[in-house]
């Protein structure tokens, strides 16, 4: 009788323990006691937020990660071009199809900034986006893998008027597609100021 109970208890523990084991084996972007939440691909803590971190799930059209690209982006008023308020340290990144981009985003201001990518495959990245958001004075790192298509992806900060004030860039995958207007230092906006 006691032996049966032990078998039953062991089975219950195994079944209950599987999800915990699986979770422990997953590659988490940052195991930090301050991390509050990892639901819906979101990590939110006092330093900022990461959405849709993806270091290992390949897009359907990629057989393997073609290359690892380390991108260090700094952001702040010190990088602003004339007539703008904010800037990234770089506004265009060219990568090969199926690359894994490992982003470190360093905020040199004392206010919140974002490095948000749009146009990724929605089956892999909810809303087609990858998002790094960092409070003033902090840095965050995360990764994502681009698909095999030639594409030009918008990068921006969506805090009110930060994109309009200079936080706009593009990732060119392979040969790229149409360039994005209004990239500081690269392309004019569609509706530039008319200087009186």
């Amino acid at each position, binding site marked *: 009788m006691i032996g049966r109970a032990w078998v039953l208890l062991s089975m219950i523990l195994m079944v209950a323990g599987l999800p915990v084991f699986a979770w422990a084996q997953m590659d988490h972007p940052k195991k930090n006691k301050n991390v509050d939440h990892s639901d819906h691909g979101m990590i939110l803590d006092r330093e900022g937020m990461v959405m849709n971190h993806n270091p290992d799930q390949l897009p359907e059209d990629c057989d393997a990660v073609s290359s690892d690209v380390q991108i260090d982006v700094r952001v702040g008023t010190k990088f602003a071009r004339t007539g703008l308020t904010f800037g990234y340290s770089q506004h265009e990144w060219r990568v090969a199809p199926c690359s894994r981009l490992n982003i470190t985003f360093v905020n040199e201001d004392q206010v919140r900034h974002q490095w948000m990518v749009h146009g990724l495959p929605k089956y892999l990245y909810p809303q087609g986006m990858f998002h790094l958001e960092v409070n003033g004075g902090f840095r965050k790192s995360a990764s994502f893998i681009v698909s095999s298509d030639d594409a030009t992806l918008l990068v921006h900060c969506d805090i009110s008027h930060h994109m309009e004030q200079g936080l706009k860039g593009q990732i060119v995958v392979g040969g790229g597609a149409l360039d994005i207007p209004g990239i500081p230092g690269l392309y004019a906006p569609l509706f530039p100021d008319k200087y*009186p």
Partner: protein
Amino acid sequence: MKVGFLIAALACVGLGVYTVPTSILPPSLVDDYFVTFGAQPYLEAPPAIDPEIALIDMDAICPAYLRPWKAAQQIENVAVAASPDCLPDNPWEVAASVLGTNNVTPHTLMQTLFGKDTVEKFDDRDGDGDPDVITIRLEVMELNGRSPDMPDVIPQFEIAPGITPGLWVFAPKGRGMTTVNFESPVANRLVRLPAPVLRVEQGDEIRLVLENTHYLPHTIHLHGVDHPFENANGDGNDGVPIFSEQATQPGDAKTYVFTPRKAGTAFYHCHVQPQSHILMGLQGMLIVEENRPNNWVQTLNIGGGRVRAPSKAVGAIYDREYDLHYADLDEDLNDRIKRYTDPRLVSREIHRKYNIAERTEEFHTLNGRSFPYTLQESLVVVEPDERIKLRVLNGGASGVALHLHGHKSTGTHQDGVPIAAEARAQRDVFWLASAQRLDLDLNTTNDGLNSYGPGAWLMHDHKEQGITTAGMNPGGNIGVLVYGDYLDAHGLPKTVTGLDSIVPYFSPAYYRGEIPVFAGTDPDNRYGDPARPRTWSLRSILFALSILGMVVFLSLAQRAGRRGSL
């Protein structure tokens, strides 16, 4: 030949005199004309045009997905009062404002748009069961500003249907996008007019952090709330550029520290170029609640209005509490930010080209919006035999003559200071000068003085300009003091003529002056726009022919005379 032409010309003159429209005759000749020729035939007035009123989308006005937010609910250990408004405040944001974003569970935080550090509450220094060190982080956001990427303004916030003045606001530090999503240009619910109501407890150490996310320098001045001129570390603390500190530059942050010794309704606003910045929207209510044990106050009341988690002191006396923030806007100032992106050009427009001496006010807001949007989220909902605390701020450049129909309320505090009992006045109109605050004790006892009984009673500025939007009424800061029995299933006030009567007011065309004012209550269209009259009637054609004939025959007669032909 010539005589023949002259006779024909004379006949034309006669026809012309007979058919001349009396409307073009000098008034002195009209009687003579009538005596000579008799009355002209009756002309039917042009028919009325059916106004083009867009069909109302009730789900856009009172979205169904927000219904669960209305109920009274317990979130963690916070009792969030019911809110029947059709746009109720997010109950998790209420709870997180009470407990602090650092103290709520991840689940609660995820239901809000706050960051982890938006409101942090620490240290029960006096051991009375509530935190005594509070950090509040505010960002500076632009609404309806210029985009170099598209012709529309971004991010968008309507104060009334189709009305999107350029605005600057303090917003609670958020997370994620400022817009509701990547496909939408509309601002999320945290980024709005007015700046959030800040609610703190007397004696707490408040660290108010200004994170200047905007492209121009700003400060926060703590108007009417106890604060030292300098912080303990010697930093300026009064928010006045040059006198107390340098303005906080874009990308920088500044912490104001104060421990208010007195309770009361106060005001906070930017003090950089105040003739522009305050009136661009950088202003909000700052309320110091009386110190009580276990007093967890609702630090942020987004958009003002109903306080869903009142403080201990207010809850002990009053059944309900509402924050009412009045303001006015000058389109000429506000829309200057729609002209340029370059901060140098915007600064020149706002600070040098705008002349406040020429100020006019086209828009008047209650809690950041004008009628009919005030019906969605700024109703003062009451029940009989209650006492309601109304905290009122006028942040506009003009005074507000606040009139509550059907009630006479009592002013209890002015500018945060209690009014002596013998000096308290019970009135139906209260005047608020610019920057003034007034606390009102509204008693809904139906005794012919405090209240005339249940109803949907209008609540509005009796300076009549205040109840207009771009000159159109009803608009402006019209609100409604409404008893529960007079609310419909959506949370809108019942009207005697039904919902259809207010449909036209939700159309941008109404505030462009394109819809007749009685369109919703005039089924026979008696006061609508008449169609354009027929340009040509038989009489007018004959009159025109007579003029033409007269000219033609006279010229023929002249030509015949030159040839010598009779």
